[in-house]
């Protein structure tokens, strides 16, 4: 029991910090500075990071008791994304510490809500059954709805929260319907079980039940497409990013998206990753590719004429959803015996990290210019930033270049990894997709450059006043520095990302099991090297016993 508590320590730490801040904050005098709770929250995330680091060598973590092992799966992928989320949470929390007082919204609840939403995200990326997934999603979402409207005296913030909430609830209902269908036809709620059912043809052929499962898959995909802001499910993004406080927009842009992507990847690759499932319908790869293309073009094109930093970043976030969706298709082959398994590449995790760093920095700058209750992040509010605050301008530039994918930034390595992995993908020839992505990068250059133009090359319209704050500086410095460092020496991080990706093994060989830890015994030994067909039947038989108790 104690071991298991240690094993889920990242979750516990975050929960504990959330509760602590809530309780302590309740006793703090009204109107006093609550930033120290932010430090506390930050330390919480640091501690969580340490815990994740400790757990890293123990992946996949073997939970003994059934209630945990069904609900959660701590594999390299989940841990890596938890780490990314924690980093995102840390960076955005640090920006909030002095930003919130400047926005006259310095309440203790902010930090507990951040902690709880991060808890939701962490559960989301490690959720092993669809129910936990749903609850985790709701924990994250509802906390973020509230955070979006946290500056409640601002009509913009409240309006943003309201919009986000209505759309979010709608998407939740869709997700739930999808879950209902998937569970209904498979009778399984945990991801490995669902995968097994699909893999071994337990959804009887000819009965049309696969169709229902496909429906479920599409509904789940649609709901997640909303969360990751893929076009045309993206409509909320610009308004909400613009209206919400900058630190919250940052959290939404980095951590929420990371979590949603993690869950989506896990669901798609584990449950629906098997070729058996793909029969009789367009594969989710096609749908994802289409979403990617639409998101890239939609985000980038709509961003062109934007004159507000937060809004530009929102559209850029939509476009990036497109790039990251491509990473879902990047599944290089991993040879395993005579069978070839496909695992997710390093691209997704690495790109999410790079994206987290860049956006945390960019929204950090957006927060920095939010002094004196200034909510506006439109051009005049940071025009000529470089004259008075060169460091902020440099950070903004680095983050923007990283988003654009210019070398010596993490964003470049991320794009490079995604593109090269997706070109090796065995599930299809995605050269066209890569070329479209590149064309989109070109389009995006225009509005990213505009940000640099405004910050560096335009004169000051009004004196740019910024939130001067040491934690903000740490956050920005850390994000920018990591962006450059990861751009220069990404090797070890890439290795980690690789390992994370590899833990999401799925198969393009019919009948091979999906996400469950690959059971070496069940696999035909390479020495015997039976024919694939035989191996298949043998496997099917073996697994059917497992699937049907």
């Amino acid at each position, binding site marked *: 029991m104690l071991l298991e508590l240690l094993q889920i320590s990242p979750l516990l730490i975050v929960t504990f910090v959330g509760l602590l801040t809530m309780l302590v904050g309740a006793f703090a005098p009204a109107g006093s500075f609550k930033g120290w709770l932010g430090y506390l929250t930050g330390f919480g995330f640091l501690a969580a990071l340490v815990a994740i680091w400790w757990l890293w060598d123990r992946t996949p973590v073997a939970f003994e008791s059934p209630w945990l092992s069904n609900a959660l799966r701590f594999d390299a992928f989940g841990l890596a994304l938890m780490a990314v989320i924690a980093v995102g949470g840390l960076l955005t929390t640090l920006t909030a510490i002095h930003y919130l007082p400047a926005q006259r919204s310095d309440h203790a*609840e902010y930090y507990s809500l951040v902690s709880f939403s991060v808890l939701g995200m962490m559960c989301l990326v490690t959720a092993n059954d669809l129910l936990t997934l749903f609850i985790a999603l709701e924990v994250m979402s509802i906390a973020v709805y509230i955070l979006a409207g946290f500056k409640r005296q601002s009509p913009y913030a409240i309006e943003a929260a309201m919009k986000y909430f209505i759309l979010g609830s709608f998407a939740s209902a869709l997700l739930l319907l999808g879950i209902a269908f998937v569970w209904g036809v498979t009778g399984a709620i945990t991801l490995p079980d669902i995968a097994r059912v699909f893999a071994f043809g337990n959804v009887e052929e000819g009965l049309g039940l696969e169709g229902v499962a496909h429906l479920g898959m599409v509904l789940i995909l649609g709901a997640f497409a909303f969360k990751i802001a893929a076009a045309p499910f993206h409509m909320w993004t610009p308004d909400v990013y613009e209206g919400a406080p900058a630190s919250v927009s940052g959290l939404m842009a980095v951590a929420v998206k990371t979590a949603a992507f993690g869950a989506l990847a896990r669901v798609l690759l584990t449950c629906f990753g098997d070729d058996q499932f793909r029969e009789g319908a367009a594969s989710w790869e096609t749908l994802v590719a289409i979403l990617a293309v639409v998101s890239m073009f939609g985000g980038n094109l709509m961003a062109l004429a934007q004159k507000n930093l937060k809004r530009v970043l929102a559209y850029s976030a939509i476009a990036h959803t497109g790039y990251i969706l491509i990473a879902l298709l990047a599944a290089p082959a991993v040879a395993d015996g005579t069978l070839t398994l496909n695992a997710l590449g390093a691209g997704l995790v690495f790109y999410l990290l790079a994206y987290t760093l860049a956006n945390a920095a960019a929204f950090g700058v957006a927060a920095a210019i939010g002094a004196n209750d200034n909510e506006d992040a439109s051009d005049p509010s940071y025009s000529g930033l470089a004259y008075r605050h060169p460091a902020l301008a440099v950070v903004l530039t680095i983050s923007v270049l990283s988003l654009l994918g210019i070398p010596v930034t993490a964003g470049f390595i991320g794009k490079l990894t995604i593109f090269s992995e997706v070109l090796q993908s065995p599930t299809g020839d995605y050269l066209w997709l890569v070329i479209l992505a590149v064309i989109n990068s070109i389009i995006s250059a225009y509005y990213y450059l505009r940000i640099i133009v405004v910050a560096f090359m335009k004169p000051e319209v009004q004196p740019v006043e910024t939130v001067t704050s040491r934690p903000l500086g740490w956050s920005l410095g850390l994000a920018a520095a990591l962006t450059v460092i990861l751009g220069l020496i990404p090797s070890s991080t890439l290795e980690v990302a690789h390992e994370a990706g590899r833990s999401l093994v799925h198969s393009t060989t019919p009948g091979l099991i999906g996400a469950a830890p690959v059971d070496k015994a069940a696999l035909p030994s390479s020495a015997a090297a039976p024919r694939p067909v035989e191996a298949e039947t043998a496997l099917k038989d073996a697994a059917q016993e497992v699937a049907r108790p």
Partner: protein
Amino acid sequence: MFEQIFFWLLSGGAIVTAAMVVLPPTGRNPLYAALALVVSFFFMAGIYALLLAHLMAVLQVMVYAGAIMVLFMFVIMLLNLREDELGTERRTFAKLLGGVAMVWVGLKVALVASAVDNLPAADATTPAMASFGTVEGVGDMLFRQFLFPFELTSILLLIAVIGAVVLAKRTL
């Protein structure tokens, strides 16, 4: 036969009352809509019972029709919107498009989903089904298999509490 009659009655009632929530004239006034919704929830509870989900039927009435709808009523009363403040509904192309798309989605899903009839139905008379839908059966699963989500839900409700306070309290 008995089951079918109840099915038609309950589901017909649920659909009609649900439509009353959404469609004018009742849909224009939140108070009427809320009342229709409560009725709809009751019909739903009936369907749950028909499906041997007794505990859920009870919870539906208690939590939904009771707690949640009371909350709605509070807010409606609090705001005390008068008829003229409600204004008129706008007819936009988006709404039309959305309606058509949603109906299409519904039809498509229904069409595909009717394949579920091919699933073998569980026999309710077996001893394994004895505790089906009871507090005991559901509770057993809830606290054994789904303990973690259950714990997580506690955080969720806590968040909702904090949220309601943060967003709605007059002064913080």
